[in-house]
């Protein structure tokens, strides 16, 4: 009897060691997976920063020193002198084209200078390196640069960050030297404005209905299930919907023709308004679901107290439920908006313009947005465009990070415990 027990207990100890060993190795496996995840995502961010900075070799066909007038170097001349220089050196056709986009006299000094650099001095980036190479293979870069100087005597080696003030201030262009993201930033802002205008009131309204008014009948259950389903529909499907409804069926509205608005630059219904409404439909389910959660979190006692004082249902909602749910609603909305800002596929389908260099001026303008710009630049094989795409990604990520930070702050500041 005792012997039997002994054997059983030694069997237990044997397996115990095994069990603990497998426990330990799986613990390591779980930890390793987590570390792998963190590494993969850091690789993503490092890869972007790596391409957004580094050494470049810039070459001028004409040496800027030649442009000095009466001993005043090019960089110190007045803007008027620069404009004159442009007029002297460019063909009438090219000048007219520039004037059509924006009058030269109305452009900033910085912009004029970059025009001179590209059009007159023919500035060109002939070689570029990543940040990693610039730091760890500096000597090889310098050898290569010296080699290059034999064929390009004016070439300069410069350490530059592709994300800089010029990138943000300049409008979109077909040349990498002058390309900027102003058009895209403004396009994104315009589009998001209409997205919010459309989706926020509708989303909050629907959430109030579902949480406060809806009785448990088939139609309300249908609406609820439907909203959950819509949240899972791929974004590109919304793009197809937007193309068919906003761009084609509602063309008179979305192109502005209905309001007697005829912008010569519009491309039928492929406008900011169409894009904004499409993104609005896309984020509507997210806003509804988030707002519902916020409204549900408001305690019943608050509503009952309000009814007890004789308030009507709407007075209760307007004066007590909504103010208490507002931080949650806003947090959810900000997160939905971040989603909309980063969305690319539906806008490509709705018809973002590939090459526009003028700023959007109305809801009926053609549009391009930040993610669209990144997509187009990434698709081009030349390395300068890749650098520009990386720089734009950093700008976009910082923007999204600010929005998320705002959402978290809002949540922490107004969070109430009942």
């Amino acid at each position, binding site marked *: 009897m005792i012997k039997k027990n002994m054997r059983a207990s030694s069997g237990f100890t044997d397996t115990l060691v095994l069990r603990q060993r497998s426990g330990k190795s799986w613990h390591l496996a779980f930890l390793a997976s987590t570390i792998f995840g963190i590494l993969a995502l850091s690789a993503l961010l490092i890869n972007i920063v790596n391409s957004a900075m580094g050494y470049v070799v810039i070459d001028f066909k004409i040496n800027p020193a030649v442009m000095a007038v009466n001993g005043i170097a090019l960089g110190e001349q007045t803007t008027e002198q620069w404009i004159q220089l442009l007029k002297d050196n460019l063909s009438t056709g090219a000048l007219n084209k520039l004037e059509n986009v924006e009058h030269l006299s109305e452009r900033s000094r910085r912009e004029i200078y970059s025009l001179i650099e590209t059009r007159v001095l023919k500035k060109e980036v002939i070689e570029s390196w990543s940040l990693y190479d610039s730091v760890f293979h500096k000597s090889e870069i310098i050898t290569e640069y010296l080699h290059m100087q034999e064929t390009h005597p004016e070439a300069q080696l410069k350490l530059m960050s592709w994300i800089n003030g010029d990138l943000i201030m300049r409008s979109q262009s077909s040349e990498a030297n002058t390309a900027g993201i102003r058009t895209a930033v403004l396009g994104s802002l315009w589009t998001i404005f209409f997205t919010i205008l459309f989706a926020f009131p509708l989303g909050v309204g629907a959430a109030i209905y579902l949480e406060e008014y809806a009785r448990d009948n088939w139609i309300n259950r249908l*609406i609820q299930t439907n909203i959950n389903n819509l949240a899972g529909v791929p974004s590109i499907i919304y793009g197809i919907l937007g193309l068919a409804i906003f761009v084609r069926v509602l063309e008179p509205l979305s192109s502005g023709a209905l309001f007697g608005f005829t912008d010569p630059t519009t491309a039928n219904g492929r406008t900011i308004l169409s894009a904004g409404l499409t993104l609005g439909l896309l984020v509507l389910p997210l806003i509804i679901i988030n707002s519902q959660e916020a409204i549900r979190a408001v305690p019943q006692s608050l509503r009952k107290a309000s009814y007890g004082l004789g308030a009507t249902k709407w007075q209760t909602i307007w004066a007590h439920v909504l103010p208490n749910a507002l931080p949650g609603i806003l947090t959810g909305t900000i997160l939905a908006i971040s989603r909309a800002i980063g969305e690319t596929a539906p806008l490509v389908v709705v018809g973002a313009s590939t090459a526009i260099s003028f700023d959007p001026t109305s809801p009926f303008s053609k549009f391009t947005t930040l993610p669209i710009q990144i997509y187009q630049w*990434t698709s081009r094989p030349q390395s300068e465009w890749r650098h520009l795409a990386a720089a734009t990604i950093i700008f976009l990520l910082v923007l999204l990070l600010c929005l998320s930070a705002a959402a978290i702050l809002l949540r922490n500041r107004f969070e109430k415990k009942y």
Partner: protein
Amino acid sequence: MIQVLLFMAGFISILTTIGIVVVLGKEAWLFFRLPEVNIWDFFTGIKWQPHINKFGILPLLTSTLLTTSIAMMIAIPLGMAVAIYLSEYADVKVRKVLKPALELLAGIPTIVYGYFALTMITPLLRTIIGADVVEIYNTGSAGLAMGILILPLIASICEDALSAVPTTLRDAAYGLGATKLEVAIKIVMPAALSGIIAAIILGISRAIGETMIVAVAAGAGPNLTLNPFEGAETMTGHIVRISGGDLSYDSIDYNSIFAIGLVLFLITFALNMMSQRIVRKFREVYE
């Protein structure tokens, strides 16, 4: 009055669904009625070459399934491992940092992952496996990037499901002498199974509908292949490429994107319904 207005706001969501179904259905119907198109060939044809009127969706479908499988091979095991680590092993401080970080990462626009696939994963694959084997545009790198994209999504939802399992269950198992691993695998995971399965289905649905990564990295041009090192266009990638140019409304290309869209919508819709049903049916309710 107010109630009616608010109801209308809720009803917009129904209209959206009706809009999607009607628009996709109508245009796809027009597409299938074209003399060049045969609905049987659409589902069984192995070539998608609009210029010679070959419309077989199989090459697009297989590459979608290929990228999705690669993505899920990364995202499911790693995502679940991360979720188990965070919910069962990590201490509170680590979890407090990692959980919001996960959610933040899940919010990075997918075009950024596309850039990552093209400029980092593809060159890496080409160095490791060989530039003559791996094409510049290939489904492998797109699938890997997609896996990294979906990892935080699955990890985050699974973690929610695992944390929702009450501590008393764990304590009871520990009391019976179970090790930490046994508690995690044999007690907590089965209790959270509905949430885990729902997360996986959601991840698959997300991968099938994912567009920008494949548009950037997987290559243009339909190609019936299961070789992850070749370029092959997926359903979503094709829609984006076709509509990226100036698409004229009367062309057969225009109608074809609605037919592909319909297939895509039906697949993801079925998956979403399945995930919701599983959550509702198998959810364990603890008081």
